[in-house]
């Protein structure tokens, strides 16, 4: 919806046959090669300081959990008995836990899982939300039932239900997918299935507005089938709300996963996430209070950076603000 404001410039750029004079009257700055509209978005995004910081930190966090273990090669499960409960030392820059496992290495390992859960659960919620939103917005018959379903999901008490589902179905999934894979699949599915509603509502609203536009009418008049209509004309135009809710989805998924792990119903201690590390550290609060800081800081800064990226994206994708 927001992108279509830029559409009219594209035929101008591609039609080289028109005399240069008439083009410059309408759009004086078009002189060089054609410019992708995403560059405009990026220019606006750059001007939002918080968003830029957020993007920087998020990339840092991604590198920390992926490239980090290649540089800091201590095995996160290796037990160095003599380093038990130590604070920061040269051998263990962030200290070691009650068994003598290196905290820095465990932070990297935990971050991998936390961010992986965040990204996959967000993707699942996004696919579900977009699918339901587009179907509800595009097909009038489906609108009523699907929106009732969305309202019902919004009225579910999510945290209690999540806790119940995880407690009840943990053991079978462990048996089916192995101890690590089982809990990963369970948490991703459970978070994804319970957080698609906002995306669906926003997308439905945008699709309803798009359906009345002339280009959709034009496409329909040349006989475009519904599936092509959605893929070629509707979906590209609802990309911006989808991207914004993607960032919010990552933040939401990371927080939910850590909350579950913090309540002791998420990932097990030998396959930690940042939330689980925080939970384990709280029992040693009197003795090693600094141990809770690292995972807590990692969760908070990652969520903060993702929220700022979302803020920046929302501004950058809004053509009313862009270019101001």
């Amino acid at each position, binding site marked *: 919806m927001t992108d279509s404001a830029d559409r009219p410039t594209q035929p101008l750029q591609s039609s080289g046959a028109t005399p240069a004079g008439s083009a410059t009257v309408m759009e004086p700055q078009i002189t060089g090669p054609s410019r992708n509209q995403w560059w405009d978005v990026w220019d606006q995004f750059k001007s939002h300081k918080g968003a830029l910081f957020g993007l920087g930190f998020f990339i840092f966090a991604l590198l920390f959990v992926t490239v980090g273990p290649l540089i800091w090669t201590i095995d996160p499960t290796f037990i160095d008995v003599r380093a038990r409960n130590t604070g920061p030392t040269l051998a263990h820059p962030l200290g070691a836990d009650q068994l003598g496992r290196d905290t820095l290495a465990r932070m990297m390992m935990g971050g991998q899982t936390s961010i992986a859960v965040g990204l996959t659960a967000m993707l699942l919620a996004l696919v579900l939300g977009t699918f339901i939103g587009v179907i509800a917005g595009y097909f009038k018959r489906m609108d009523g039932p699907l929106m009732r379903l969305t309202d019902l999901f919004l009225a579910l008490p999510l945290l209690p239900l999540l806790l*119940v589902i995880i407690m009840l179905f943990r053991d079978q999934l462990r048996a089916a997918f192995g101890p690590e894979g089982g809990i990963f699949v369970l948490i991703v599915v459970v978070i994804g299935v319970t957080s698609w509603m906002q995306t669906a509502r926003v997308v439905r609203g945008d699709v309803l507005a798009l359906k009345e536009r002339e280009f959709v009418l034009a496409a329909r008049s040349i006989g475009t089938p519904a599936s092509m209509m959605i893929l070629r004309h509707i979906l590209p135009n609802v990309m911006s709300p989808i991207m914004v809710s993607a960032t919010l989805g990552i933040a939401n998924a990371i927080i939910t996963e850590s909350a579950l792990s913090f309540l002791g119903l998420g990932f097990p201690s030998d396959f930690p996430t940042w939330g689980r590390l925080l939970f384990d550290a709280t029992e040693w*609060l009197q003795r090693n209070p600094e141990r*809770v800081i690292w995972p807590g800081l990692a969760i908070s800064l990652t969520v903060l950076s993702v929220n700022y990226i979302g803020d920046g994206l929302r501004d950058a994708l809004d053509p009313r603000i862009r270019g101001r």
Partner: protein
Amino acid sequence: MLTYTIRRLVLAIPTLLFISFIIFLIVKLSPSDPTAGLPLTIPPEVREQIRESLGVNDPVLLQYFKWLRLMVWDEPLHLLENWTGWNVAPDGPRIISYQTRSPVMDLIVQRMPQTLWVVGTSYIVGILIALPIGIISAYRQYSVFDQIGTFVSMLGFSVPTFFTGVLFIVIFAVNLGWFPSVYDTTHEVTDWDSFIVQLKQIIMPVMVLGLYNASQISRFMRASMLDNLNQDYVRTARAKGLSERAVVLVHVLRNSMIPVVTVIALNVPAVFGGAIITEQVFKVNGIGQLLIIAIQGGDVPVVQTVSVIFAVLIVLFNLIADVLYGILDPRIRYD
């Protein structure tokens, strides 16, 4: 207005029925066994009899209707008898906890005051912090105050309560020793000194939850004030010579409060849900902790009842928000 309210009420009933059925089914279809926690020396026949007596082997729909009747008719009557002393309660069976063998409603009645105290105070504190910050932030947009205010609310919005709670414990309980880290619910306020003790122990959970609520509400307040400050009626109010104070605090504020009041009402159930975590951090033995213990012990009736109470809260406050919106904004009432 009345038909609008009635229409909303009628819509809420099927929603509640559906949600309670989903909750019932999820818990019922799970493989958890109520006799799993009993000693292994009990022979299988006796185990089967115990299951029979708990009514686990009946058809699912029959179990649901039996449970629903208890939930909406018998238990509220028992509550009424508890509070008023009238002899209205039926003699039939009640929803019994597997773990404690006492009626679930009694457990909830015991736990509710602690939760209400902590959650209620924190919500009020949150609102009291959020409104002035939102108003000043919007009135002085892009000022230093606004920059700091938006940053802090972004921070409060992003930092999860289980980290702020633990951080507060590290700073104020472990290092400074100002406040106790555990909330003692047996403490009774009788005189000034015990009041101070109560104040000290409630301050940390309330601040943790309050800051989180304040950051959400102040964002809405700021956005809503900004929407209204540029409207024509504000210019008219200024043009007819009203003082700036009257313009902002009477004209703009009253209109900006419409969406904020509904957001405040809509957020109440979410605050109860979030309190589960805060109760766990500060060891408050409230309704959230009851839920966690029940989940760990496979105590199906307690889990079902507490979840349904949360669902009722959500639907109820959605309804309140809808009706409030109708009262505050006449354009919404379409009757």
